[in-house]
């Protein structure tokens, strides 16, 4: 915990409680601990947790908190994989979970205004009656919040054809670190001036808190077909991915899983995934009837020229749902192997896919670690997951060495650090591998315009000058502090 005294904590608690009411402010030690981590392996302890009910309460909470010189961290559903919502420096956690309303739907304009705490899939369910949905579909879509999606510019299987979150956000109302409220972007035509909306999307809570979001809604496709292709050789799977794209086809989704991933996924989903295949591709095409059938035939053709074992087309919606349920639960299902996992999110050029993949297996082998690969093959976004038990001494360090080598291999192949999960805390110290000190300083200056005192989600994304001693791996006491830096 940072250097805040009991008196300082009490004064802040009193002011927040007076403004928002006792039910909105949590001080109990056990309760605060629950807001100290997200789905990554990092944790820290917030000094307070605030659960605002609307935008004005967010503004009040931010104004009071920063008025006390205290940092704050926005939190959605806490499913982030990079430690973005972990509260450093004794920050106050401001959780948007109660702000989960669909405020307004414009069916003809195909847009909706939502509060940031609404869950991604709930939004799609609530507009389903209009034949519309919110296209970005992270695998965590049943639980992640729209605010979290905006902050991390999240992607999902269907973003291959539809684009990631940024392409679906029209405007964001933001409470700035001084408690004032601004509207970035707009719903009418092309807003003039700088695209500050675009700057905010992906800023991981370091520029302020989104309190209302205007999202673009996408019509549900009339026809959808889902194919499961399985291969005896991972190279054949990768070649099929390249072949499909080279043939000028743009599937709605193009996902790959390796053998171990298929095993854990099938144990949970019972969707009939072939557990003896070395690689499996899940391909979805959508659009108008005849075009869809043609695309299915051409994809099957490409797969056949690459020695596919079987081509299975989901017979109905139930079968399709079962297949996706498997894919979308892959990260969680990995815990069936070992209690902990650590994953990376690098993007590599599609041409380098096979090469990098082979390198990933090699690195894992060298360290005697289990690696599982589940990835958005269509856009070269790898998710190598190292599965381990942090209770074994030295294991966490080993996993981190392997992780770093995987990142380096991806960058060497011309790739980037993060495809969709964000940098947050966990990947922050890899930034130096990609950017020069000047680049980083430039980014930091942009941030300063919004947050000159660095009180909005401090010490995230940009390395250096941070006090990270109070954050540790969740198994931190065992791994030793700072083991990850």
């Amino acid at each position: 915990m940072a250097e805040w005294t009991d008196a300082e904590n009490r004064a802040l608690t009193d002011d927040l409680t007076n403004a928002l009411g006792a039910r909105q402010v949590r001080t109990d030690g056990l309760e605060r601990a629950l807001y100290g981590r997200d789905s990554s392996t990092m944790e820290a302890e917030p000094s307070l947790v605030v659960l605002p009910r609307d935008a004005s309460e967010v503004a009040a909470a931010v104004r009071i908190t920063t008025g006390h010189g205290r940092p704050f961290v926005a939190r959605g559903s806490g499913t982030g994989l990079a430690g973005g919502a972990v509260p450093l420096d004794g920050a106050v956690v401001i959780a948007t979970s109660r702000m989960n309303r669909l405020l307004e739907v414009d069916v003809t304009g195909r847009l909706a205004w939502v509060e940031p705490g609404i869950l991604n899939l709930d939004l799609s369910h609530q507009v389903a009656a209009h034949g519309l949905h919110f296209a970005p579909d992270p695998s965590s879509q049943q639980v992640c919040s729209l605010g979290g999606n905006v902050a991390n510019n999240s992607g999902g299987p269907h973003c291959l054809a539809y684009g990631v979150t940024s392409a679906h956000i029209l405007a964001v109302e933001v409470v700035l670190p001084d408690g004032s409220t601004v509207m970035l972007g707009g719903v009418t035509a092309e807003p003039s001036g700088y695209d500050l909306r675009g700057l905010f999307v992906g800023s991981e809570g370091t520029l302020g808190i989104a309190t209302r979001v205007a999202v673009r809604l996408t019509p549900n496709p009339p026809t959808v077909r889902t194919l499961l292709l399985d291969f005896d050789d991972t190279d054949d799977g990768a070649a099929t991915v390249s072949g499909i794209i080279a043939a000028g086809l743009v599937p709605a989704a193009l996902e790959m899983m390796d053998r171990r991933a298929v095993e854990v996924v099938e144990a949970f989903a019972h969707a009939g995934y072939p557990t003896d295949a070395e690689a499996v591709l899940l391909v979805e095409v959508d659009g108008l009837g005849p075009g869809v059938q043609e695309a299915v035939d051409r994809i099957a053709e490409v797969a056949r020229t690459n020695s596919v074992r079987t081509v299975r087309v989901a017979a109905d919606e139930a079968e399709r749902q079962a297949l996706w349920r498997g894919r979308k639960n892959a990260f969680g299902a990995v815990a069936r192997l070992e209690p902990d996992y650590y994953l990376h999110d690098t993007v590599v050029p599609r041409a380098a896919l096979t090469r990098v993949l082979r390198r990933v297996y090699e690195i894992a082998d060298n360290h005697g670690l289990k690696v599982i690969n589940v990835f958005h093959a269509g856009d070269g976004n790898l998710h190598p997951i190292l599965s381990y038990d942090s209770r074994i001494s030295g294991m966490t360090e080993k996993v981190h060495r392997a992780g770093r080598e995987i990142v380096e291999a991806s960058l060497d192949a011309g790739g980037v650090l993060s495809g969709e999960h964000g940098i947050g805390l966990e990947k922050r110290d890899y930034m130096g591998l990609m950017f020069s000190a000047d680049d980083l300083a430039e980014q930091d200056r942009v941030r300063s315009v919004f947050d000159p005192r660095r009180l909005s989600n401090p010490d995230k994304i940009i390395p250096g000058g941070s006090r990270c001693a109070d954050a540790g791996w969740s198994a931190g006491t065992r791994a030793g502090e700072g083991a990850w830096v």
Partner: protein
Amino acid sequence: MSRGGSFPIDLGLDPEDLVSCVHCGLCLPHCPTYRITQEEIASPRGRLMLMAEVAESGRADPVFIDAIDACVGCRGCEAACPSGVPYGHMLETTRAALVESAGYQPWWRRIGYRILEHPRLLRASSRILALVQRTRLVPSRFALPPIPLRRTRLESSPRGTVWFFTGCVMDAWMGETLAAAKRVVESTGVEVRVSGDAAPCCGALHVHAGLEAEARDLAREVMAALDGDGPVLVPSAGCGAQLKEYGHLLGTSEARAFSARVLDVHEWLVGRDIPLRVGPQPAEPPPRGRPVVAVQDPCHLRHVQHAHQAVRTVLEPFFELAELDDAGLCCGAGGAYSAAHPSEAAEIRELKLAAIDRAGGDLVASANPGCMIHLRAGGAPALHPLELVDRAQRGLL
């Protein structure tokens, strides 16, 4: 850090189970108490973190007791969890430890459970409940029978080849429902033995409340009463789940063999010849055509027994079915939960009623008496699936 009123405790949880949660949060939207509070402490992920914390420190406090007490025990989280966290067993173990160390059960609830073991007492109190239910029933497009004020006696056939488990709550409150379910079973051409007062209670509510010793006694009583090796058909999802758990609860091969004989009544009906028409039909067919039935999956059928598809298979020949879009979210009845936490239970029910609305439908099928009563009290036209089938067979729907 407020640690007021803390006390030492050994939760007795398996360390492997404690580390099996990877904190992914995929269970959150499937948790009714998270849905109504939107707070981590009321979520499965939060409860598991607290269990880990208490297991490590060896001390619990009132905040912990409240968090564990507020859990419905619906196990929606367990069904949604890709990591296979055995939440249901962990909850039961934790509650049992709290009963030991903290005298956790409020006294009035203990008395409530005692009543369950004495069917006659229960019948008296349930009559009062039936009166309450009557006054709150909301009129619907399809007239529903009020919950009967008198118990219907079920005939038992000594030569019967299948056991029909009547349980406690269901027997006392819903004799007509039981009679209808039994008629549907008999319409397939079997004779039925009725468990009745010889097997007074399955013990599910006791386990959920952490009263494991009492639950084990009841289990032995039930097993002794339902002799032979014929199948045991259970028309209540909650009781069925519990009878299937006896193997785990008692840990004996005898109990495991007993549990293997237990089937939800719908599971048993799948694949059997259920006649579309039974008995004399009314001269005029019902005016409204084929009704649409929205299927509500009781948690203990869907998340615990995984037998919810069977209800659809049984209903399909008789009705159009409508599916809810809430992935089997709990309705808030939760055994004794609705009695212990009435306002939360009503809030959770609002979510279910909204999902029922979105699905559309004339009637609601619910294969658990507790859920059915709870939904009806909220104004939903809910009936047991076999009561629906029974009426359709008689030409009344």
